[in-house]
């Protein structure tokens, strides 16, 4: 009996350690046979999304909804504004042309360093800001190409599957955030030709130059999700 208990405990510890192990440990370094993930950087002038935030804090569930406006200005700066459906602004974030971040406005309830840091990181990862192309590293596993960039205390991973950006992950030793962008089927005008750089033996990512039609942000440790759905009707002018 004691033997079984001992082996059971050992198994539990092993399972725990396996769960704690970095999910990126099994990745194999790859030679650069794909082009930079930065090719997938979204290009836009103005996009409006319906935004839903769901999570739990101290065993209490919370839900918040609103509109998220992404705006690229002529001076190459970017603004992201979140407001509720009735027009009341929650926050207004800005990145200048050098990707330097500032808070233009935020309501006192959200004006907490951890909240701002998390929201800023989510948007920065989605918009692929502050990434150094020279530091990009390539890995592969199970038919997926992992593009790794240093980002703060962790790494930003842009994971490509079948020539398309499948998801974005942010992780230190453990996965912290997963961002899943979904595009509607591309029109020929919005996607780039696969043959464009074939002569350089570089497979071109099937990037859709616009912003995704929907995005799901999953915060694995903070236990909340943010869902974005593009508003197609001419709501923003």
């Amino acid at each position, binding site marked *: 009996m004691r033997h079984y208990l001992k082996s059971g405990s050992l198994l539990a510890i092993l399972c725990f350690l396996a769960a704690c192990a970095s999910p990126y440990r099994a990745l194999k370094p790859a030679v650069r046979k794909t082009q930079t993930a930065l090719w997938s950087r979204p290009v836009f002038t103005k996009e409006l999304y319906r935004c839903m935030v769901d999570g739990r804090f101290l065993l209490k569930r919370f839900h918040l*909804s609103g509109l998220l406006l992404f705006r690229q*200005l002529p001076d190459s700066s970017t603004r992201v504004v979140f407001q509720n*459906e009735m*027009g009341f*602004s929650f926050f207004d974030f800005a990145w200048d042309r050098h990707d330097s971040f500032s808070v233009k406005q935020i309501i006192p309830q959200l004006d907490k360093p951890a909240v701002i840091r998390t929201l800023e990181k989510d948007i920065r990862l989605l918009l692929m800001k502050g990434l150094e192309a020279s530091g990009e590293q390539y890995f592969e596993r199970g038919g997926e190409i992992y593009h790794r960039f240093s980002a703060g205390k962790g790494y930003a991973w842009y994971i490509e599957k079948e020539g398309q950006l499948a998801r974005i992950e942010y992780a230190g030793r453990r996965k912290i955030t997963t961002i899943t962008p979904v595009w509607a089927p591309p029109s020929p005008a919005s996607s780039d030709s696969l043959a464009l750089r074939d002569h350089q033996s570089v497979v071109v990512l099937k990037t859709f130059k616009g912003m995704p039609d929907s995005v799901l942000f999953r915060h694995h440790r903070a236990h909340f999700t943010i869902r974005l759905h593009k508003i197609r009707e001419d709501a923003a*002018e």
Partner: protein
Amino acid sequence: MLRLWVALLLLPAAITAAAQPKGYQALKNTEAFRQALAKTNAARETIASDFTQTKHLSLLEDKIRSRGKFFFRKEDKVRIEYTAPYTYLLIMNSGQVLVRDGEKTSRISTRSSKVLQSVNRIVIDCMRGSVFRNPDFTVTVYENSAEYLLVLSPAAEAMKQLFRQIEVHMDKQRLDVTRLTMTETGGDLTDMDFTNTRHNVALNEALFKIR
């Protein structure tokens, strides 16, 4: 020195002129207006209207538009239904609030939130004409040939954190609210333009059902 005195003497007039909205003058007989508003609204049991909401982002020159339907039933039932380009429903009924944002429905008691209580009251006050009795705001009334303009300046601290001011535009003929302009402390403002306003139409109680 004389110039300084002249400047100081003219300062109060300059401040008044700056505070007065362009194209309007201060209403001389506010009491008569209050009475007319009270009398008109006493005869109105329900209000139904369409609205267009325009959010102006002060630093971006951008606007976000939406539209929907507004319903009010005495004494304190309000339904604000956004229909395009997204669906969003807000019902206020006797201190209870229902919010449906496409997927989720939440029910909140205004007793649990001072801010929600105040916002609830602003909407109802504007429709019921009882805005002068709201202690959260001081009200100044202006007029031009076509409309009255009520400028609500926050007096309560909770309201000062939310709004710089709220403007209520009223049609002079019918005393209908034609536009609500809410200016936030950061300078962003939201216009709600009301059109096709009808009074005393039959409104089903189910429109205001919270449970």
